[in-house]
């Protein structure tokens, strides 16, 4: 088992013919992901990287039974692309695109909530995220595949390259990963920490969990509460942004401390109180995880 993505996922790529879309689709295919279709309006009927391209998601789903999508559409049009997938039968939507206006995402969330109340529960990962990888099975995203190794740790993160750093250490310790989920750095997003950790908690293959958070918002605090009440598996956490100046946007739109909310201090406090092992030095991630897990055996 794994979460969200596996070797049976039938993946559709929105924006497959663009520069980024094209480059990363090729990498995903090379990793073994089952990419069944691409969508670029106006290019329907053609083939790109050997993958059939359609004008609409509706056509692509009808012809290929795609159930998962990966979005590379430019920011001004990406929210619409998410909705096109949501309204046409895609169950898992992974949006890589960075820079989508927050108001657009608020509209997307409203529609996803409406669909949910009709019984259509759609998973959205991102936007502004590296994607999802289930090592050895499939990768839907922009992460370098080779740093991963099939294993037992579920990793969820608000960042991209920061996740690679942690993954690389977990891989080198021989622990490996069940699934790695990049939920993205935007203030309004699809899955949050709690949603993802819930799935990891129910997944048999995932035996420990690493959460990589950052300053801003209260998703880490919410996760701490959830973990304390529901999770028996060992949980580790790292929070970036301890030294970030207040009120400045540190790259990610969501990584901003406003007033007294969302500070590094409040997050670490909540996590520690929930019994989570908090990693202070990112470079020690592998070592700490390894020694704690060994002590529990």
């Amino acid at each position, binding site marked *: 088992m794994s979460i969200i993505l596996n070797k049976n996922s039938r993946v559709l790529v929105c924006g497959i013919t663009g520069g*980024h879309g094209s*480059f*990363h689709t090729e990498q995903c295919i090379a990793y073994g992901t089952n990419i069944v279709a691409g969508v670029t309006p106006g290019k329907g009927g053609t083939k790109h990287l050997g993958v059939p391209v359609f004008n609409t998601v509706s056509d692509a789903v009808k012809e290929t039974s795609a159930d998962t999508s990966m979005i590379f559409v430019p*920011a*001004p049009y990406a929210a619409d692309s998410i909705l096109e997938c949501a309204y046409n039968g895609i169950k898992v939507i992974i949006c890589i695109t*960075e820079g*989508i*206006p*927050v*108001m657009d*995402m*608020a*509209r997307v*969330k*409203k529609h996803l909530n409406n669909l949910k109340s009709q019984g259509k529960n759609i998973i959205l990962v991102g936007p502004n995220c*590296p994607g999802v990888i289930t090592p050895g099975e499939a990768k839907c995203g*922009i*992460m*370098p595949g080779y*740093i991963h190794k099939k294993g037992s740790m579920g990793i969820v*993160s*608000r*960042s*991209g*390259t*920061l*996740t*690679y*750093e942690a993954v*690389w250490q977990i891989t080198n310790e021989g622990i490996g990963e069940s699934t790695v989920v990049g939920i993205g*750095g935007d*203030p*309004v997003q699809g899955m949050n920490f709690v949603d993802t950790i819930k799935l990891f908690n129910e997944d048999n293959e995932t035996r420990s969990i690493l959460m990589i958070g*950052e300053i801003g*918002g*209260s*998703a880490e605090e*919410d996760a701490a509460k959830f973990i304390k009440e529901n999770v028996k598996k060992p949980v580790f956490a*790292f929070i*970036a*942004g*301890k*030294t*970030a*100046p*207040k*009120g400045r*946007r*540190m*790259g*990610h*739109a*969501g*990584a901003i401390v406003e*007033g*007294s909310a969302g500070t590094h201090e409040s997050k670490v406090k909540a996590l520690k109180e929930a019994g989570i092992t908090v990693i202070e*030095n*990112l*470079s*020690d991630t592998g070592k700490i995880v390894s020694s704690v897990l060994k002590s529990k055996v």
Partner: protein
Amino acid sequence: MKLVEYEGKDLFIKYSIPTAKRYGVIKIGEDISKLKIDEYPVVIKAQVLAGGRGKAGGVKIAKNESEAKEIIKNMLGMTLVTHQTGGKGIKVEEVLVEKANDIEREIYISVIMDRKISSPTIIASKEGGMSIEELAKDKPELIVKMPVDVETGLMDWQARELAYKLDITDKSLFCEFTAFAKNLVKVFINYDANLVEVNPLIITKEKKLIALDSKVIVDDNSLFRHKDIASLPDRESSELEKEAKKIEINYIGLDGSVGCMVNGAGLAMATLDTIKLAGGDAANFLDVGGGANVEQITNAFKIILKDPKVKAVLVNIFGGIMKCDNIAKGIVEAAKNVDIKVPVVVRLEGTNVKEGKEILKNSGLKFEQADSLWDGCKKAVALCK
């Protein structure tokens, strides 16, 4: 993008939100003679991006022309230090001159994006004037929260409910307020704001509603569809930060001595934290982005080196989208173009890392290579001492 008071009020005026009568804005080098003032007293307000201006001497009342002249002369060019400027001050370059109003009541109202519910939300309190943080601490029971549908906007019944909750029952004021609240939400949604705050919203002795102050922050991601906002001056960024922004490099100047070039915002933040753990302080936050090319790396280098505080540079790249050999080529090219007088520590990991390390090694230039983030931070900090 943070707007100063009068820019925010320009948006209010467009949406029929009542503001105090404006006589004009005066910049350094100008004086009050350019304004036609028909009635005193007037309020003179420093136009800076910080709250708490009043207490710091950035808001003053003038009873006549000579007083106004004196106040404006002193205020323009002064350095304003408020509780929100983080110890440093902000230079006052513009002042806003408005008609003074007699205040009967002050109300707090703002619209924010509530991350928890992914929805615009009104935050209000029948007692205004102090900051929302103070309000939340002192009188949390007075704070009203009302989620707003992002597609419909504030509905009539919500506006009415809000008016009752804020004790606005006077008949003529009631309709004025409900229209105001609906329009404030329109400003928030139509301008893709992260925050629209009116503090205080006042009721005058003449029973008029006036948005006495404005704080508007527009989502940077949305500027492509708000050309009017995008063309306003960027008052938050330093010259160096603006230069970086122009070439799409995410740079924020800090106080330390280790210059940093990192790919990805999260890793960049974590790198600053690790430098601190290694006993040093970063000179900047810099995210070269996912798809940075050789030219962009070169430019990033130039920007970092323009900061005279930088005593060593740490390049920390975990190559995913950006391959390590491209980074290495960028570093070598930059080193050839720019006169680098400080030591450079490079830590590469990821796609094509071997090729990247080879390029650096064979470049004929002197780079200190590091094998891990911790190794790189320790080396860079040591070189600064």
